């Protein structure tokens, strides 16, 4: 190691060949940064295009009639999609009423009661796999279990499909929410002589509540926008639903049905329905984020 430092150094006494190399490297660096920034900003184009078209094509028909009237028959004008909004709300609501208790209770079991048991590991794996299952499979399942058994398309079938869809989202976000509760709180509660149930009900759940709500809102946002699970379970209806056991309209299926017809008025209505749906989904997402950030 006689001459480690004897070599000339670019910072101290720059050789010209060395300098051109460094200039070239800096240029390459800037070029790559430019490409990366351009590609990233390119992503904004579709979003801006979607939002622009939603407003441009969806706003003209937006009025109170949209929320109170029934869809127009083919080729007719006027009308609204009150029944579809109601149908979406009802099916998401019933789906939530099934999946939220199941998801939250399962999450409590795998996080509070026996985190390492075989059952808990199985629950985690199944939840992960269920999130990966295409949403249309939830529809196929509800079709076999409800439609084929009862012999009719119905809001029940749609709700069932949405419940299966929401379950893993609620379960996994709820598990994260419970993981976020400091174990010191639990120990403090046990130290004061609380039972397991008291600890969970009085200490853990209140602390995790905002994060659990975030998960629930995310699941609602996702379910409200889904079409595939409803398309052959709830099907569609031109009329106000008289019961939950008959074909039921939903916003997303309305968009699907109206987007492929040759009538401009129906297509305009599909855009308005899209605007309403995106607004609802965005609000649900923002609500989820706000609840979450308020906690932190």
């Amino acid at each position, binding site marked *: 190691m006689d001459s480690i430092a004897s070599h000339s150094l670019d910072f101290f006494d720059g050789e010209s060949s060395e300098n051109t190399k460094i200039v070239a490297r*800096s240029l390459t*660096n800037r070029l*790559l*940064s430019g490409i*990366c*920034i351009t*590609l*990233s*900003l*390119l*992503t*904004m184009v579709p979003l801006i*295009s*979607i939002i622009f078209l*939603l407003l441009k094509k969806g706003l003209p028909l937006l009025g109170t009639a949209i929320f109170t009237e029934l869809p127009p028959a083919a080729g007719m004008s006027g009308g609204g999609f009150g029944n579809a909004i109601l149908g979406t709300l009802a099916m998401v609501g019933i789906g939530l009423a099934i999946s939220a208790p*199941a*998801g939250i*209770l*399962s999450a409590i*079991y*795998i996080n509070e009661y026996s985190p390492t048991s075989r*059952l808990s590991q199985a*629950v985690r794996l199944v*939840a992960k*796999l*269920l999130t*990966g*299952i*295409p*949403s*249309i*499979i939830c*529809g*196929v*399942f509800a079709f*076999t*279990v409800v439609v084929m058994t009862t012999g009719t398309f119905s809001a029940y079938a749609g709700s069932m499909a949405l419940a*299966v869809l929401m*379950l893993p989202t609620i379960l996994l976000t709820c598990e994260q929410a419970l993981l976020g509760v400091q174990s010191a709180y639990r120990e403090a509660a046990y130290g004061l002589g609380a*039972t*397991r*149930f008291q600890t*969970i009900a009085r200490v853990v759940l209140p602390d995790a509540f905002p994060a659990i709500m975030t998960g629930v809102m995310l699941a609602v*946002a996702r379910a*409200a*926008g889904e*079409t*595939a699970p409803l*398309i*052959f379970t709830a*099907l569609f209806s031109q009329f106000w639903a008289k019961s939950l056991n008959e074909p039921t309209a939903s916003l997303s299926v309305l*968009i*699907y049905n109206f*987007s*492929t017809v040759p009538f401009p008025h129906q297509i305009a209505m599909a855009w308005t329905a*899209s605007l309403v*749906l*995106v607004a609802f*989904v965005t609000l649900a*997402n923002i609500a989820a984020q706000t609840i979450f950030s308020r906690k932190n």
Partner: protein
Amino acid sequence: MSAPEKDIISQSGYRPAPDFFKILCQTASILTVLMLGWIIYEIIESAWPAIQKFGLDFITTSAWVPNRERFGVLPFIVGTVASSLLAIMLAFPLGVSIAIFLSENFLSPSIRQTMRFVVEMLAAIPSVVYGLWGIFVIIPIVKAFGDWAVNSLGGFPLFSGPAYGNSLLTASVVLAIMILPTITAISRNALASVPKTLREGAYALGATRWEAIFSVILPTAAPGIVAATILGLGRAMGETMAVAMLIGNSSRLSWSVLSPSGTLAGLLANQFGEAQGLQVNSLMYAALILIAITLLVNLLGEAVLRHTQKKTAGIR
């Protein structure tokens, strides 16, 4: 606080009540686990007549003629795989770029925040809205591109004409936008988990930003990015509505990306509402194949992701 003073520690005579809440939670867990089995069981049961009748020919033949009761899903399997792979090829460079953009400090934090918001919004837009948007925006663009491509590149089988608006390419372009958030989010996590010390080490040796990214940061995050891509592929394969609205739903096999094609999910969406008899069983069989493919892809993705997390934990 009016606890009786006499027994500080409850002893004889006190028996803890069974924890009903625990039993409730346990029941919910068991139901959750059974759910997946139940789904698969129901679908296999409904598909059984078709499985018995067609066997593996169902997968290898390409006739889908309901009124003659001839069913084969090869074109739809091919279409599912082809549209998803094409979508991944389009989404991968964009997704990784955005992930790098979000984890580096090129521009001010507020711009990065905006970018994050954009990606989250893309994830929130419903599939059916993408379909509607695709009909009005992407179909004309792809049609124009297709006409040009047939004229100038028509010699390649991939671009042989005639060019349709409802085509594999249209579906893939929209799919690429839809899976972008998945790829971005998981890649960003992988990049963020590269230890800061490695980045500093590269900079201290005189590396430029991109030399550090290419030689140290990306290789370290590579398994995570691979997992992101696989999970994005899984999402693309199961995506239904937008694809059903844009791909043309044809059961003809074609080499050209400009021709109509079909996917398994699109097939189910289109035909389930009006299907009868053996057609229902065949659609169930198709659903089973779709489950099998997506489960396989997702399991692979999760396995890579888990392996990655273990490995990066070792780097410190």
